């Protein structure tokens, strides 16, 4: 404490030396404790009040001889310079390394996606093979024909086979002000409502951005994107539905989903365009797998 007191007096003396226009940071006398606006600010005050090592003033007052330190000082300067150079070099070296790490991750993701596509394609081929084998196994009697007709009726509905036919195309997108207000963005629940409304309007097959929906398809948001079958979508969202061309659109608009989307389009200014299409081609849902199989008991 005595050391600190001595330093502040010496600095103050220096300030008086230079007249009244001395810098406030050093010339200011430490305010008495009673005037302190906030005692907890004392640390910061002290840092700015006493930025120079007080030992300098102490040594100067003592008049220490410093002839021996010249070479130490030079050596230290070299060390400091080397420190700067090494740190700067390392930082600039690390930047391309980080970049290459990042691009490697991206390429790994892309490889995995390609692999996934391949596997999905394989699933489709194998599903077709299963259908052929099934037809061969069922044989050609009356009971088999009943089973086959049931399969033919159910396959398109569950999304197991590719279908085509007339239907509606609904294009939805975030409103132009989505960047400012997150509520103006299309959410996973909006697409869920849309898909359910189409099922409700007797759509036979529904696909979002080319991803066929089945009863097991999940429409969820992951991060900033909406995922269908765990694959993220890019805007705008194109929802295609195959169904009776005369009733599908009208029934959808009248359903609660139609009201929901009308509300979004009017109050949130989201894009919502619905149109009839003469011919739609929807691929099979590759996510459908055989879950249960048994030997026919005939």
């Amino acid at each position, binding site marked *: 404490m005595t050391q600190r007191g001595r330093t502040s007096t010496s600095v103050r003396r*220096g300030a008086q030396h230079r007249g009244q226009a001395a*810098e406030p*940071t*050093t010339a200011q006398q430490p305010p008495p404790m009673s005037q302190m606006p906030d005692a907890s600010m004392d640390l*910061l005050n002290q*840092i*700015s009040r006493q*930025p*120079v*090592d007080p*030992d*300098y*003033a102490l*040594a*100067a007052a003592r008049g*220490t001889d*410093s002839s*021996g*330190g*010249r070479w*130490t*000082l*030079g*050596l*230290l*300067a*070299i*060390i*400091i*310079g*080397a*420190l*700067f*150079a*090494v*740190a700067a*070099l*390392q930082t600039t070296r690390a930047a391309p390394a980080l970049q290459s790490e990042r691009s490697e991750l991206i390429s790994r993701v892309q490889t995995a996606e390609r692999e996934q596509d391949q596997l999905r394609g394989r699933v489709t081929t194998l599903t077709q093979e299963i259908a052929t084998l099934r037809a061969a196994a069922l044989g050609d009697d009356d009971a088999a024909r009943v089973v086959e007709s049931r399969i033919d009726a159910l396959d398109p509905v569950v999304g197991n086979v590719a279908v085509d036919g007339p239907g509606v195309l609904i294009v939805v997108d975030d409103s132009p002000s989505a960047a400012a207000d997150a509520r103006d963005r299309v959410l996973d629940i909006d697409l869920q409502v849309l898909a359910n409304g189409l099922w409700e309007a007797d759509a036979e097959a529904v696909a979002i951005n080319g991803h066929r929906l089945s009863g097991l398809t999940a429409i969820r948001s992951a991060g900033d994107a909406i995922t269908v079958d765990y694959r993220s979508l890019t805007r705008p969202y194109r929802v295609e539905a195959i169904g009776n061309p005369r009733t599908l659109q009208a029934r959808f608009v009248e359903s609660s989903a139609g009201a929901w989307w009308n509300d979004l389009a009017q109050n949130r200014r989201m894009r919502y365009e619905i149109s009839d299409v003469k011919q739609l081609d929807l691929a099979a849902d590759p996510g459908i797998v055989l879950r249960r199989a048994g030997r026919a008991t005939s």
Partner: protein
Amino acid sequence: MIPLIGLIAGIVLGIVLEPSIPQVLQPYLPIAIVAAMDALFGAFRAYLEGIFTDRIFVVSFISNVLIAAAIVYVGDQIGVGSQLATGVVVVLGIRIFTNAAAIRRALFHA
């Protein structure tokens, strides 16, 4: 004059020789540099005020660097390394700014 020549020589040496810092010490290099800058600015200000002493500078520099690195090291061991590093940078940063302002006033009288 010696310090300035030494500083430039050090930078050149560092770039030419590229000494590799051990992996263990690498996280403490930036903090050590901030502490070194603090010691440098403090020394320059003391020099302008006419109270500079080599011995004090050497001691204050080494202790500054070691203490700053030690604080961060201890913080790393107990899981608050980045917070303590921020604290060290804030405190040393305030001192650097204060000293730099005083140096500017002393040099340019502005």
